[in-house]
């Protein structure tokens, strides 16, 4: 421990103050306890603060035997100054669905990581993985061994493969959930281990599962296949509880606005008028909902969770193709299947997913996300490939341009025409 080298990091040190947890303090403490990587990382960060440039080299392909993903290679571009982080690869460990842990697992993981890595982590990565931040090439196989043997854990995705699926807390703790989010997430992860570990896709592919349209795992913005819970029947209403909200006994939105005086709760203004479809009204003391007009936006339920609940005929809406901007611009996911029943083993969903992959693997260009393929080849082609039927729910609005494709067999008389016959009717 005596030989740890603390760098002079005046700028980085300024991030110790303030109230929000300081990663600098955390890392420095760990460094001072003997982790040179921690101190070198802060040192290199200081250099970045000086130069306002990163000091990591470009990529570097490293990994474990038989896998094409799960490790991100990383090398310092100033290794002589910070030798302990000359190699600084990250390991993506596939998290358990919805990220519950017990202390035993966490401690084992920490022990392993102190032993074989930098002692620094991200809990969690944006995709959802446990990100173990920084180790050497030599350690990769031993880490993989320890993870699989001691932690019962496996690597997550990286590269052009299925990425680690993730989900919201769902039925484990949330009364809104229309789905067994954990089971779906876990089942897909287990079913598609090969796709996850061995890149065979044109580019990355992400699943995310949210139990309801609040979408607490941001599936609609960040997943090639978003699975979002919904219901077909009526919102369940407890009229007594509605009155309790009106009477002020229950706090609107579960108390989410407690630190500001917004005045007494006004069901008309706060619920009925904000309903995007105007499908609610009061009939005397009864709250009424025209459920056929409801778009299940969750607002009324969010405001009065003790009075309103999603229906019981539950399933998922499937939306596809969300992605960040690279290259054609960001996409939100597009509605593909308005309602699908979600019962283990989710065969209907998997059948759909596999058709999607077949099409994409056949037609997708290198680094073309699935959403971009749809944009390039059209929703029509998407429907043909997946066998889905066109329904108006797939579009915000019908097309406004008149540039419709027709095929020869849709058109009376086909496309073979005789120029001579035409000119017999019409002199040139």
């Amino acid at each position, binding site marked *: 421990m005596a030989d740890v080298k603390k760098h002079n990091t005046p700028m980085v040190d300024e991030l110790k103050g303030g109230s929000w*947890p300081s990663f600098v303090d955390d890392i420095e403490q760990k460094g001072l306890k003997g982790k040179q990587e921690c101190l070198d990382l802060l040192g290199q960060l200081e250099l970045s603060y000086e130069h*306002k440039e990163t000091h990591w080299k470009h990529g570097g392909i490293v990994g474990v035997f038989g896998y094409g993903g799960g490790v991100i290679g990383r090398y310092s571009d100033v290794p002589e100054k910070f030798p302990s982080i000359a190699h600084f690869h990250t390991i993506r460990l596939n998290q358990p669905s919805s990220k519950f842990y017990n202390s035993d697992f966490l401690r084992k993981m920490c022990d392993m990581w102190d032993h074989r890595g930098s002692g620094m*982590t991200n809990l969690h990565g944006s995709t959802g993985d446990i990100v173990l931040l920084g180790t050497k090439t030599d350690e990769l196989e031993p880490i993989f061994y320890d993870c699989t043997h001691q932690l019962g854990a496996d690597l997550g995705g990286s590269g052009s493969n299925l990425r680690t699926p993730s989900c919201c807390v769902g039925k484990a703790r949330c009364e809104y959930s229309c789905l067994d989010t954990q089971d779906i997430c876990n089942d897909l992860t287990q079913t598609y281990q090969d796709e996850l570990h061995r890149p065979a896709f044109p580019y990355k592919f992400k699943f995310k599962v949210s139990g309801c349209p609040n979408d607490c795992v941001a599936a609609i913005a960040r997943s090639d296949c978003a699975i979002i819970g919904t219901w077909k029947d009526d919102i369940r209403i407890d009229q007594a509880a509605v009155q309790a909200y009106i009477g002020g006994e229950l706090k609107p939105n579960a108390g989410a606005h407690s630190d500001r005086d917004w005045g007494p709760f006004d069901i008309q203004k706060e619920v009925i008028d904000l309903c995007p479809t105007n499908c609610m009204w009061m009939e005397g003391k009864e709250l009424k909902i025209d459920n056929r007009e409801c778009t299940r936006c969750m607002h009324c339920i969010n405001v009065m969770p003790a009075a309103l609940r999603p229906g019981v005929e539950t399933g998922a809406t499937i939306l596809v193709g969300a992605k960040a901007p690279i290259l054609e611009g960001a996409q939100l996911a597009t509605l593909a299947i308005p309602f699908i029943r979600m019962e283990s083993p989710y065969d209907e969903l998997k059948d759909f997913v596999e058709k999607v992959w077949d099409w994409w693997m056949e037609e997708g260009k290198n680094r073309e996300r699935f959403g971009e393929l749809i944009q390039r080849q059209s929703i029509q082609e998407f429907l043909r490939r997946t066998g889905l039927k066109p329904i108006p729910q797939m579009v915000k609005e019908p097309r406004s341009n008149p540039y419709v494709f027709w095929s020869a067999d849709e058109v009376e008389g086909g496309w073979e025409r005789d120029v001579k016959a035409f000119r017999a009717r019409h002199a040139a």
Partner: protein
Amino acid sequence: KPMANRITDIGPPHYEQFFPPVIKKNYGKWKSHEIVQPGVIKYTSETGDVCYAVRVGSARLITTDLIREIAEIADKYCEGYCRWTTRNNVEFHVTDEATLRALLDDLKGRKFPGGSYKFPVGGTGASVTNIVHTQGWVHCHTPAIDASGVVKAVMDDLFDYFGSHKLPAQVRIALACCLNMCGAVHCSDIAILGIHRKPPLVEDERITGVCEIPLAVAACPLGAIKPATVEVGGEQKKTVRVNQDRCMFCGNCYTMCPAMPLADGEGDGIAILVGGKISNRVSAPKFSKLVIPYIPNEPPRWPTAVKTVRRILETYAANADKYERLGEWAERIGWERFFEKCDIPFTEKSIDDYRLAYTTYHTTTQFKWSVHTDNL
């Protein structure tokens, strides 16, 4: 002997073993919830059971020592269980008020040497919860800004909003350190985005060794990269040339080719986007919109970015209706009014000129008079 007894494709540990007993027992039976104070949500089950979830902020970039501390707390109050949220906060579950109080007291007392809280409680309801963010200078090769440092600076400044319910609605802030946008920056109430502003360098000497020229050429969405041959030390070398005027600094060439770095201390910095959202509540999910094209990198505490985020947040807080997300507010009052109220200069950089630009053109006579038109 890592290859001996090799196990592969086992996937993640099964989630169920990590459920606290109350969670396991009441799976799918939760009936309702109430946020009893910022950061503490009380769930009630159809079985009559109750569970308090205590949410604490986290830097996300944390050490094994901190994780051990979390495990220790879990052992002490939570039968050994804890969880992480989708926004990198940590949650502890307890089933009675006494334990809840003890836990909250304990958490409040835990601080880092520099004085920052290890486990600040908050992030529920109409608050600013944890900033979803990415690697920055701590681990990535393409960032234009740091991530953890900027987040720390912004959250220090907004700390009060993390532990309180004072806003009209939840405000989700996200940060991504480059246009790859690893996170939900493209759909956040306020987004802090690292941007490059100089075209890539081309390392003629190195390029053929480290990447395939056709791949580099194909990488550019605007076709700004063309193959070229140059003389290097008397030798003819295949390389590429960038039409600098057509480059929009997306960094895709660098992703494909290490010999085309973009990073530049003077050129790089922050863009601010606002008004995105993800939930389907009331209005449909929305993209964030670019309202401030550039703020220089100012490590270590990024004062301009911090001030700007606060100004937008507080202007929103002072003006929006209850339940109204930032983007809903901006759309309701009109973007001309948004820029006016937030005192943000409108520049041509905020006007779309990419593929779908036409759909953002203003094609009605409906607009509001604002500072922008007052002199006409």
